């Protein structure tokens, strides 16, 4: 797993360098799959007009003869289906390596596997539709597999023995399946993202058009090859195969259908067991967020910011008696992935996982300051443990103190203020790139809280010139180094900020709580 994580970090870093983190295709692999589904749908509808179940292979030849449109539409359809498998594979691998597979994410993992199975099934019917050599081999191998299921009155393999012409009903059913499966596919996509707030369904427009343009260019410059027709009275011999969908054919040729079912079922069981195999032991599992109802002002910010819709606003039972807000946040532990983004969103520091609430963070930063005494107007690096060039493994990086956080989005802005007041010349916050965040929206909310006055914002009294946010993935230590050097030189040019010794942050928090109580009392009146 360590090697896989390192490899992924390097690949991310390399692609960030080439395309920038906004357009890194690895960050958008899941969204690219969906964009490709749309491409497949559009091109598929066009191809459907020219497909005849009575003469499947001939209709493919006819489409290929449409030099200006049909040929490259078929090419885009074919290459998009291949690219969808590649993107889906990368997406699954990424989730697996980053251990985003267990707990509340189990549904997404399992539905993702079902989606992948649907993609393969849909591809299988698509290749059979063409009724070329590959289609014949896939049909015969598939029929042998399905004949083991006791659900067919007559073995399907009989259709491909040559005893009689292949019934038109077969191609009709196959076409029906090829058209119906994508409908199921889109339903499963809905299930796949159902536990996400604001799911990023599509990649950035520029990346989408690049993918579509690249596939179109490939289809035009290197069109799909015309393959030999199916012939039930000849062995296929040497023929071109699509290995994204026909990868199992050599195994099907080598082992019995029973063994192939065994291999398939074993793989399915292994895939479905991943959520249970990858979840940490109970003692090491991060706890879900909890709401301290005494502090909750019912502002709804945590409810708005939660990327997993794990927080709901419910009626406060004792609102009238206590004079507090009518609504109070409530965390559903079954949906909470313990990202801690709610802790960063809560000005009165009343919500978050144990040990990572705003209050707990103030305690940690106080200990950090006491232990390391950042001074000399130096820069403190606040770094995400999952990214930030993996610098959180050490206490210092390039001479600067490193203050690790579980996620940039978990960071409460008061911590930044505390560090500056404690004498740090500047705070450089190094977060994962937005689309690389383990918790989806950490960097987005962090940036909004630091610089765009989103609730739980960094107070106006903090000199923004001494706070900087950079994005660096786990493998981008050079990005951190360069940003640190630039920030240091910028900070060095600033005059020393006027100290405000009378501001006591912890006391401020207490005041906020008292203020909240008063506000709640007024609201109830």
């Amino acid at each position, binding site marked *: 797993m360590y090697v896989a994580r390192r490899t992924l970090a390097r690949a991310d870093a390399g*692609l960030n*360098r*080439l*395309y920038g983190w906004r357009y890194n295709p690895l960050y958008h692999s899941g969204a690219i799959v969906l964009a490709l589904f749309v491409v497949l749908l559009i091109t598929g509808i066009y191809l459907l007009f020219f497909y005849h179940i009575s003469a499947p292979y001939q209709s493919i030849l006819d489409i290929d003869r449409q030099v200006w449109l049909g040929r490259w539409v078929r090419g885009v359809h*074919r*290459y998009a289906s*291949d*690219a969808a498998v*590649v993107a889906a594979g990368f997406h699954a691998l990424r989730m697996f390596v980053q251990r985003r597979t267990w707990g509340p994410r189990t549904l997404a993992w399992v539905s993702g596997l079902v989606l992948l199975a649907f993609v393969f099934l849909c591809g299988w019917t698509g290749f059979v539709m063409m009724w070329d050599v590959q289609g014949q*081999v896939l049909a015969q191998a598939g029929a042998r597999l399905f004949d083991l299921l*006791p659900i067919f*009155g*007559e*073995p399907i*393999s*009989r259709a491909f*023995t*040559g*005893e*009689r*012409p292949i019934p038109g009903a077969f191609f009709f059913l196959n076409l029906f399946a090829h058209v119906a499966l994508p409908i199921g596919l889109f339903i499963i996509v809905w299930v796949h993202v159902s536990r996400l707030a604001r799911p990023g369904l599509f990649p950035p427009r520029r990346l989408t058009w*690049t993918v579509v343009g*690249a*596939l179109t*260019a*490939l289809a035009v410059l*290197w069109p*799909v*090859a015309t*393959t030999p027709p199916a*012939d*039930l*009275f*000849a*062995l*296929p*011999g*040497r*023929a*071109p*195969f*699509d*290995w*994204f969908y*026909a990868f199992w*054919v*050599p195994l099907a*040729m080598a082992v019995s259908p029973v063994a192939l079912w065994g291999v398939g079922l074993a793989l399915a069981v292994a895939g479905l067991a991943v959520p249970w195999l990858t979840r940490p032991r109970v003692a090491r599992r991060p706890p879900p967020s909890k709401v301290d109802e005494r502090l909750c002002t019912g502002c709804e910010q945590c409810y708005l910011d939660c990327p997993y819709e794990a927080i709901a606003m419910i009626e406060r039972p004792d609102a009238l008696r206590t004079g507090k807000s009518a609504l109070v946040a409530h965390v559903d532990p079954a949906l909470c992935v313990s990202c801690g983004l709610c802790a960063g969103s809560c000005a009165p520091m009343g919500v978050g996982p144990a040990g990572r609430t705003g209050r707990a963070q103030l305690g940690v930063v106080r200990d950090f300051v006491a232990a390391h005494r950042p001074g000399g107007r130096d820069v403190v690096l606040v770094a995400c443990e999952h990214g930030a060039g993996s610098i959180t493994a050490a206490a210092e990086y390039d001479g600067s103190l490193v203050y690790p956080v579980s996620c940039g989005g978990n960071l409460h802005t008061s911590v930044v203020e505390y560090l500056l007041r404690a004498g740090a010349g500047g705070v450089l916050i190094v977060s994962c790139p937005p689309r690389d965040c383990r918790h989806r929206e950490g960097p987005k909310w962090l940036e909004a809280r630091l610089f765009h006055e989103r609730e739980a914002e960094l107070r106006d009294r903090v000199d923004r010139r001494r706070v900087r946010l950079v994005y660096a993935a786990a493998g981008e230590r050079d990005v951190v180094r360069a940003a640190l050097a630039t920030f240091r030189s910028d900070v060095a040019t600033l005059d020393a900020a006027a100290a405000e010794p009378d501001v006591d942050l912890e006391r401020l928090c207490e005041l906020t709580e008292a203020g909240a109580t008063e506000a709640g009392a007024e609201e109830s009146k």
Partner: protein
Amino acid sequence: MTNVARGGLGALGVAGVLALIRVLSFAPYTTERDAGAIVRLAWRARGERVRDCRHVTPEELAKLPVHMRQEEVCEGRVLPYRLVVDLDDNAAVSRLIHGAGAREDRPLYVFQDLTVRPGVHRISVRFALEGRPQAPEETGLATPPRLALDTTLSLVPRQVLLVTYDEEREQLVVRDGSTR
């Protein structure tokens, strides 16, 4: 790295991925290791259907709902046939073919591929009822109790020759695709 170099490398990366997709999308593969040929035995036969009937006891009848009470219940099944194939006077296949379905009441389906070297081969196929039916049902429609084929086949590399049952002629025949 300059923007131009980065752009060039980026384009190269995209081209590399596309080339990989194209190559893997049409990578040649040989499904058979040697250029052999196949003699395929495939047919459907109704077989000899028999019924086993018994009278239901009054106690059993009483347990059934009124509309399901029948004094006699019958279960039909198809008797098995034995398929024996000799290829160039060597035994190639000898197996019992049972009626399809969990109750063996569906027709008999034969599907067997014999890989042979290209060339001329002598083949002998026997498809015969195993045992005799006690009380055959609809014998007029059934497959004859014994089918046989003795012939010489000439196969070219990668050819598939089909041995099948012609229901109209009630005999085993050889087809090569041109005689469908």
